[in-house]
């Protein structure tokens, strides 16, 4: 059977960081307790000149540096985000031009809260499988917004990852993928609003846990596998607690999720979150490793992926772009004043 999957990958995380404790102190809260409660030490903050388009371009360019693919052979680019720079005008065209993949190219922007990027992977897998394209880029990136003082302010961060999907020189085969979707209003943002609204406690059990658990269980059934068959598991990570709890509930160990759990150090990168986790796993993966990924997007749905790393990963020039660990380490701390200046300017109405 033809192997379809990931041919290359790249990630990007802006350099600025702000500690959860620093945000807490501004609002007169106990920073250490909040940090511990959320499982988030610090989060990434974009620079004034960074947005979802620049993060997408940097991720895609990192993926192209690692492989020898002619960008003109890329037949599709799908960018998933909830912070596309324009309300009308695609981010994908900017990426297409910046990686010289235009003009014979299918492009569209996706939106599905934090799982728009993994939905883009599924689209590309389908097109490659149908023989309509040789390669497709699936990108998930965000510069997510939170109202000052809102609980989300401790986690809403910025970052992204890009996956080149194809059927030649596949470094990680996507064996199975499926989704679990319902209409659940746990988190939303109306078109004219600057910051999102959320359903408070409603966001946990009937939303994140229900969708991830049902999706993951269906995937294990379809793949005829068990949690212990996987080397690594990645779950959407809106904070440091949810993915740990859902993994435990499903029977995955802390060792399996460690490599793909970045939220304590960079926060919740929304559409980038599970994808940066996957990039981090691919940074260290060896042939034969099996990877389990379940994303989550409010609204709500989960995309599940059963992935097997191939021998080709040894030939990919992984060193030609920074690893996720290196991106996490490249940081500059900012104070709340700088942070609020940046976020105010970024999300100007």
């Amino acid at each position: 059977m033809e192997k379809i999957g990931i041919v290359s990958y790249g990630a990007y995380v802006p350099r600025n960081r702000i500690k959860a404790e620093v945000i807490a102190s501004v609002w007169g809260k106990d920073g250490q307790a909040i940090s511990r409660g959320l499982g988030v030490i610090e989060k990434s903050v974009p620079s004034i000149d960074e947005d979802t388009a620049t993060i997408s371009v940097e991720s895609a360019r990192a993926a192209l540096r690692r492989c020898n693919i002619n960008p003109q052979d890329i037949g599709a680019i799908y960018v998933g985000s909830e912070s596309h720079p324009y309300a009308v005008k695609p981010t994908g065209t900017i990426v297409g031009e910046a990686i010289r993949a235009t003009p014979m190219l299918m492009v569209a922007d996706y939106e599905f809260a934090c799982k728009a990027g993994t939905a883009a992977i599924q689209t590309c897998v389908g097109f490659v499988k149908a023989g309509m394209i040789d390669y497709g880029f699936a990108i998930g990136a965000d510069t997510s917004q939170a109202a000052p003082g809102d609980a989300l302010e401790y986690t809403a961060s910025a970052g992204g990852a890009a996956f080149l999907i194809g059927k030649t020189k596949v470094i990680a085969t996507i064996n199975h993928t499926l989704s679990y979707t319902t209409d659940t209003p746990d988190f939303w943002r109306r078109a004219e609003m600057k910051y999102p609204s959320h359903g408070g406690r409603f966001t946990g059990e009937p939303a994140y846990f229900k969708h991830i658990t049902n999706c993951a269980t269906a995937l294990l059934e379809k793949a005829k596998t068990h949690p212990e068959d996987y080397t690594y598991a990645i779950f959407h990570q809106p904070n440091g607690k949810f993915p740990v709890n859902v993994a435990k509930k499903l029977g995955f160990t802390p060792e399996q999720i460690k490599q793909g759990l970045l939220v304590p150090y960079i926060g919740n990168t929304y559409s980038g979150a599970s994808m940066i986790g996957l990039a981090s796993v691919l940074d260290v993966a060896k042939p034969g490793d099996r990877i389990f990924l379940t994303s989550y997007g409010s609204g709500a749905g989960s995309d599940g992926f059963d992935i097997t790393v191939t021998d080709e990963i040894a030939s990919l020039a992984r060193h030609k772009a920074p690893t996720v660990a290196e991106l996490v380490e490249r940081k500059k701390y900012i104070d709340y004043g700088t942070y609020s200046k940046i976020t105010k300017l970024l999300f100007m109405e």
Partner: protein
Amino acid sequence: MKEGVARFWREIPQRYNFLGNVCSSCDRVFFPPREACPFCRRKSMGKMKEQYLSGHGEVISYTVIHVGPEDFEEQVPYPVAIIQLDEGPRITGQIVDCDPDDVKIGMKVESTFRKIQQDGCSGAIYYGYKFLKSHNSNK
């Protein structure tokens, strides 16, 4: 404003991907691209070939901007450098993700994709190159 959008659109190959050109008579590289080679003049007519540059280069000189133009005033202080690209041309570019004190003459730099400016809150957003200290440069 409309004029700005049209001009920017025409310059996208240069701003996004360093599309320059080379004189096939003397092999000099130009960025931005030129109609004719100023050294070979008529000899170069019709012999200018498009070439994408790497976006890698070296800081020749720099200054730190403390009072920026309108679109940049929120970024001050920030370094702007004259950069000699590896292929030869010299260009001016902003250096980002780097403390002004850390910029050095001779520092290796590489391009990064950033937002350059925007026409207010409702206008177009212009993207293009800025520079970072090279990942492989320890200087």
